């Protein structure tokens, strides 16, 4: 049942399963009370289990389905592989700009693209392999975990006891309740990669980062793509300039964007899916061949019998945790998508590691003190780290943003990748970096430098002193730092410098 449906023969899925869910995995014999018992083998759970086992703890990991979680199976890795195909195809159409002629016949081969993505996933799955976890001493159980008491769970009838446990069950897709949608049929992130041919017209419902990324990739592969989002603003969580830049990019790729729009009803007619869209009380109808639903995910808290362990939770926020990621049961912690917002793999990795420190080594690491970069993988990408300007202003911090447009950066001009900007938010006067937003083709790579600066307390003035290879796109950060230094050079310093140069 773990097998991918569709045409999966000979593309390495057996090897994938051997890594993430070996078919004949003998359940280990429980070794008494575990120091750390982890429920869920996604990014948070696998990281925590790995880390704790390396440090010598007695660790059990319970996984329901596949190791690696949503991120590996249908999330980050496989989607990014397909986006790469979309980007390549878009680049090929821009061949003329770079002095080449695009081939006369240039069709995206979706089948090959999907098979490539699956091969990529198989490669990446090696990092989460069951054998590796076993080798470092993790007791790996496959099955459904349920709490049976404050310090015990059962896995398919097998009783496991723990002194500390961590819930990392992640999140599941939100159920859809659009009338007629189930009857008409639709794709979601699980089934999208089973499709081996491209629909002519597709409607994407849901405008989160995933919906936007997917819509752009589909449009680039030649699909007429319509995206309908209930939010009144495009990517409402992002700063307006960044969101506007990405919405322009999507529009340029031919994506039709409907803001403030919900799908009211779906019906089938002559093999087409007819969808009624509702915007501010006004109804419009679109006719498409396929519908993709990406309405976000909700914490996977069902079926764990959390009440028996005295763990507070609700369906929206998931498991309730304090700043140290401890639940209302002081033996039990939680990490990743099941309790945290936003739901990103990088946060899951970091929070899993944090739980090991807090639960086993009496550390007092706070989630709120973590510096978390994240990225939306549209083209250009939006990457963000630290505070937004609004957050800083609400805390009464005088904040100033240093902006460098990518079209000012030599390498970006040379690469023909001029869309976007680097915005670094600093505390006015001190150069302390509060956060940054980067919109650029490689924004996700560039944000890490700012992340490092924030974690280590390096100020913007110091970043001006860091030499970078020239020409590179990350030079934009140096240029922002130079601008900061220029604003520090006030009349008084200028007078002092002149005076010195005169008497020297």
């Amino acid at each position, binding site marked *: 049942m773990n097998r991918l449906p569709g045409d999966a023969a000979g593309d390495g899925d057996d090897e994938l399963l051997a890594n993430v869910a070996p078919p004949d995995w003998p359940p280990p014999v429980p070794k008494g009370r575990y120091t750390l018992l982890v429920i869920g083998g996604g990014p948070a759970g696998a990281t925590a289990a790995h880390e704790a086992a390396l440090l010598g703890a007695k660790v059990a990991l319970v996984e329901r389905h596949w190791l690696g979680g949503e991120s590996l199976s249908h999330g980050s890795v496989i989607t990014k592989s397909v986006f790469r195909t979309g980007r390549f195809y878009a680049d090929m159409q821009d061949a*003329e700009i770079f002095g080449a002629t695009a081939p006369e016949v240039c069709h995206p081969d979706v089948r090959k693209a999907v098979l490539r993505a699956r091969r990529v996933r198989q490669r990446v799955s090696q990092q989460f392999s069951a054998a590796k976890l076993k080798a470092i001493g993790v007791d790996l159980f496959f099955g459904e975990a349920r709490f049976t008491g404050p310090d015990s769970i059962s896995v398919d009838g097998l009783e496991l006891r723990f002194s500390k446990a961590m819930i990392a069950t992640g999140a599941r897709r939100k159920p859809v309740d659009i009338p007629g949608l189930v009857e008409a049929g639709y794709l979601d992130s699980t089934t999208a990669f089973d499709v081996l041919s491209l629909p002519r017209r597709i409607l994407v419902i849901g405008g989160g980062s995933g919906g936007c990324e997917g819509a752009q990739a589909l449009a680039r592969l030649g699909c007429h793509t319509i995206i309908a989002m209930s939010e009144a603003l495009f990517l409402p969580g992002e700063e307006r300039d960044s969101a506007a830049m990405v919405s*322009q990019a999507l529009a340029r790729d*031919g994506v039709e964007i409907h803001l403030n729009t919900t799908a009211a009803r779906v019906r089938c007619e002559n093999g087409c899916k007819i969808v009624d869209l509702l915007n501010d009380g006004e109804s419009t109808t679109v006719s498409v061949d396929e519908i993709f639903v990406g309405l976000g995910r909700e914490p996977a808290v069902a079926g764990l019998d959390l009440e028996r362990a005295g763990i507070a939770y609700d369906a929206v926020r998931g498991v309730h945790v304090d700043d140290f990621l401890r639940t209302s049961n002081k033996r039990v912690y939680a990490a990743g998508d099941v309790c945290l917002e936003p739901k990103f793999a990088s946060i899951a990795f970091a929070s899993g590691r944090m739980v090991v420190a807090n639960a086993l080594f009496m550390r007092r690491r706070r989630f709120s003190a973590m510096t978390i970069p994240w990225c939306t993988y549209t083209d250009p990408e939006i990457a963000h780290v630290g505070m937004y300007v*609004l957050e800083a202003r609400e805390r009464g911090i*005088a904040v100033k943003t240093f902006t460098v447009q990518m079209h000012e950066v030599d390498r970006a001009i040379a690469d023909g990748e001029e869309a976007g900007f680097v915005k670094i938010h600093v505390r006015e006067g001190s150069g302390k970096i509060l956060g940054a937003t980067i919109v650029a083709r490689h924004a996700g790579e560039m944000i890490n430098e700012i992340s490092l600066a924030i974690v280590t307390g390096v100020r913007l003035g110091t970043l001006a002193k860091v030499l970078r290879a020239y020409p590179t796109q990350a030079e934009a950060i140096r240029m922002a730092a130079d601008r900061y230094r220029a604003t520090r050079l006030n009349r008084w310093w200028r007078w002092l410098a002149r005076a010195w140069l005169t008497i020297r």
Partner: protein
Amino acid sequence: MRFQPASRYSQPPWLYPKPSDQPGEAASEHAAEDARLLDALQQAAFRYFLEHVDARNGLVADASRPGAPASIAAVGFGLSAYPIGVERGWIARADAVQRSLKVLRFLTDSDQSGTPESTGHRGFYFHFLDMESGRRVWNCELSIIDTAILIAGVLTAASYFTCPDAGERELRSLADALYRRVDWRWAQGAGQALALGWKPGHGFMNYGWQGYSEALILYALGLGSPTHPLARESFDAWTMTYQWENLYGYDLLYAGPLFIHQLSHAWIDFRGLQDRFMREKGCDYFENSRRAAYVQREYATRNPLGFVGYAADCWGHSACDGPTAPAMDINGRRQPFLGYAARGAPCGPDDGTLAGSAALGSLVFAPEIVLPVVRKLAALDRDDAGRRVLASGFNATLAGEAGGIWVSPGQIGFDQGLLVMMIENHRSDLIWGLGRANLYIRSGLQRAGFEGGWLSRRRLWRR
């Protein structure tokens, strides 16, 4: 031009161009020609408010194209333009009073029930009204910002027509009543900041103003209302979303389209006026708009997308009309065209369409860089010098049918009104003077926390 921004390296604030950077001899060389050109453009723009008006109710059309509905913003601009026409001798004072009275009477008696076919609700008006009946068209929203533009015009007329005769007295009392009946507080909806609009049967449109925008005038009027004043916190809630940025080496409160930096300045003289945010940054909104013009010029000079015609003396991205042609390959890149849209620089959107009127709207802030644009655009259309400036937008990248560039047909009331007023403020300070004299605006600005400039001069003098 003496000053060239050196944004590639560094630009400390003391290197920012100052108004005194205008090249001396060059200015006097062009002075006579500029004055003539500005007068001609201003008069041509003013003519819009004589020609595209309904004779019965005084409503002003949104655009010059046939069949266009009335827009309440255009009405506000019309009411603000008539005093200028009187001062310049383009219209008789009695005629101006009659025209203003006609529309004020219409607004006073209009259907304020808020039903889908009414004219307004709670003192606000629907964005677009039928030219004849004055009722809502196009299923449009009850527009908060456009009502503010209308009311600003209403108050300007009341401040100008101060004669004691019956007509002007009636005008003043109608204007006062119209302002007093606007329920600004209601427009806050559930949140602190003002909503954008409201639709009958649907309620408030579910997003408010975020970031710096043209809404300064709206808050000044809302906070100054003697009857339904906004809470002071509403202004703070809005300014909380500001972002102070260093762009191309200039420190400024950024907004992409130029009209955002211009609209409120048509009525209010912001020179030296500082609210809490601007005090913290050591700037004021006038200086900010000036820097915005420089940023726009810098963007056009760089012209990263390689559009035709962009130059240091040809810039101006704003909300304007543009071509609706299907997407085209430009420099190997697929370029869609946006039609009527808010264009901005440097973060876009940009489809090669510039608005001459947008550049000219910044005349009062940075004449030294705006006048070269006006001269160039005027020289390009020799037979009809105002064509490119007065049109809502032009696109030199997209060739029109005749082989020439694409120019937006006709005119839009919003642009024409802003032009008439901004040129006037540059020439004579007439409208700013009326704004300074208006006690509602003064009190609104003071409640928003503004100090300095003409606000404090008057206070000193009173003491």
